[in-house]
């Protein structure tokens, strides 16, 4: 191989698919299980063609039984397999949450370390497609409350592919949340993919005046905000958290120590969301660095309405982020 890294242009959806295919090729213990992952090709087409390559045992369509098939995944993981359970969307994961919280997250501890659960659960998350209140939850930050699980939120094509691999190497349960608006997004990817680090947040754009801390689909709003702010001479640093549990405190505090101001952007409901946790940690760990109170831009606290204008009003908007930053920063020059 040549020394230079070849990159390919692809979509987030295809990156997920590549990650899945590579995982099944690499390790005979890995299999994909969930509703419509096989014959339908995945409700977001993320497993298209996989049934043909890997067969119905390893690309396993399940009945509509979220609670049981999640539990089956836990059992199979304890039995030596490396299951990837796909719960179609986070909305339906509420039916399976007992198995996630009461079994997957606790068995290692309850058994005093005897049995670990090397299970990966993937699900689509997020709003923005006018799917209304029961199909628009953003609960990844909520899941991050639970000790015993790791919560990943890939925002880029590289992470969509690579995090799956890293997650499969984890001896403990990992939840991966894919924001459904990202699937069609295009991006660059190294051709020779490797496992990506999942322990660290990443500075996606450097800046001096304010830290915009975010993850998932909101990353792109944050980057657009930074662009807009740059025109006004405000340097915004944009941090992609990448992992919501455990949070990368070091990266967060490093950025805040540099900019002295922080805005957290997430699509979950404001009260008790991941933004609250980040705000609380900044207060605890970097209070005396702050030149202004930490601010949050989150979704309105309302079940997501169907109508487009109402949904847009409910979600964090670029203008709101810009206004929030401007409210706390005095522009240079």
């Amino acid at each position, binding site marked *: 191989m040549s020394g230079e890294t070849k990159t390919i242009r692809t979509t987030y959806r295809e990156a997920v698919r590549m990650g899945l295919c590579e995982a099944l090729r690499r390790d005979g213990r890995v299999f994909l299980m969930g*509703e*419509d992952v096989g*014959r*339908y*090709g995945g*409700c977001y087409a993320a497993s298209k063609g996989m049934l043909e390559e890997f067969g119905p045992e390893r690309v396993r*369509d*399940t*009945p*509509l*039984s*979220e*609670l*049981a098939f999640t539990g089956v995944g836990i059992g199979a993981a304890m039995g030596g397999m490396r299951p990837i359970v796909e719960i179609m969307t986070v*909305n*339906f994961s509420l*039916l399976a949450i007992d198995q996630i919280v009461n079994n997957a997250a606790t068995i290692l501890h309850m058994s005093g370390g005897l049995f670990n659960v090397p299970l990966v659960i993937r699900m689509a998350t997020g709003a923005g*497609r*006018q*799917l*209304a*209140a*029961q*199909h628009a939850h953003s609960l990844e930050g909520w899941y991050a409350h639970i000790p015993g699980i790791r919560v990943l939120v890939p925002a880029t094509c590289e992470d969509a592919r690579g995090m799956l691999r890293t997650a499969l190497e984890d001896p403990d349960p990992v939840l991966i949340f894919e924001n459904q608006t990202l699937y069609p997004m295009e991006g660059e990817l190294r051709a020779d993919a490797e496992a990506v680090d999942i322990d660290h947040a990443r500075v996606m754009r450097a800046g001096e005046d304010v830290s915009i801390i975010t993850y998932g689909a909101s990353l792109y709003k944050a980057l657009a905000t930074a662009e807009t702010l740059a025109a006004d001479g405000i340097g915004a640093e944009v941090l992609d958290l990448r992992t919501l549990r455990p949070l990368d405190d070091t990266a967060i505090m490093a950025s805040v120590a540099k900019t002295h101001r922080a805005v957290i952007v997430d699509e979950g409901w404001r009260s008790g969301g991941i933004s609250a946790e980040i705000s609380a940690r900044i207060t605890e760990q970097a209070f005396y660095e702050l030149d202004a109170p930490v601010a949050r831009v989150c979704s*309105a*606290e*309302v*079940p997501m*309405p*169907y*109508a*487009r*204008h*109402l949904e847009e*009003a*409910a979600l964090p908007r670029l203008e709101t982020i810009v206004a929030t930053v401007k409210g706390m920063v005095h522009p240079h020059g």
Partner: protein
Amino acid sequence: MTNKQVRPAIDRDHELGLLRQMLLIRRFEEKCAELYSVTKIRGFLHLYIGEEAVSVGVMGSVAPDDGVVSTYREHGHALARGIAPGAVMAEMYGRHEGCCRGRGGSMHIFDAATRFYGGNAIVGGGIPLAAGLALADRMQGRQRLTWCFFGDGAVAEGVFHESMNIASLWRLPVVFVCENNLYAMGTAIRYAQAVTDLASKGAGYAVASEAVDGMDVLAVEAAARRATEQVRGGNGPYFLECRTYRFRAHSMFDTEQYRTKDEVEEWRKRDPITFLTSRLKEHEALDDAGLASLEGSVAEEVAAAVAFAEGGSWEPVEELTRFVCSDRSNG
């Protein structure tokens, strides 16, 4: 399938009424598909085309004060129940004039006057609600029934099992109507159910059950009447499996890789609308002119619904957080 009766003598006006209702659902939804492609309707859109005989056949037995609990594939239920097509269409447009002020969309049609309790986008999510509505009736000494629609896919959900058991145990006046269209999204029933004869599942809960040809509106009607008699008699719930088929994709995103064109074509031969039309023609209760005039009146009704939706307004953004809690004056 049980209880398939000798075909009854023709009842012209009644059957023409059934035909009109089925046609209304069909044409309404064809229009929805069109409107979706020009993004007037957005989000998810699940069409009922092919399954019209089920809702139309069942609704004839639904008394004015009975309750109905539905799914995300509910336009057929809503229209057959008598909700104004304009209100339904406006809802899909996201209009203030929609039956839920644009907050619900296609998957969440609600209506107070007809006691239509949604439109539920969680598969199986409405089943215990129906049992609860029935419990309220029982505890308040009311004679009305609750009708609960769900698909074959929902039968795999734990909540189906829990709710059937509770409804039977407490002898609740619910009719469980399972619309078995052989697929849950892209998963054929043989990959989802160890026992594909769904009606047989009633036995595990001591619930009287039957399966009926869901492409034959008259057979469905007769079965719904039997269900009504059983349930109104205080004998607890009834489980009615209607064997049907959806002619269109699961939703507007579905590429239908999981079934063959041939299979769809075979089922289209059993189109419930063609079926009833032929019967009426055979009995000389309908001729081409009559059909054309029926189609004309349906087309007008659909056009009026679209016009109503088009002419609607948007809910003010200031009202975004309304209906998170009840307006306290309503309390």
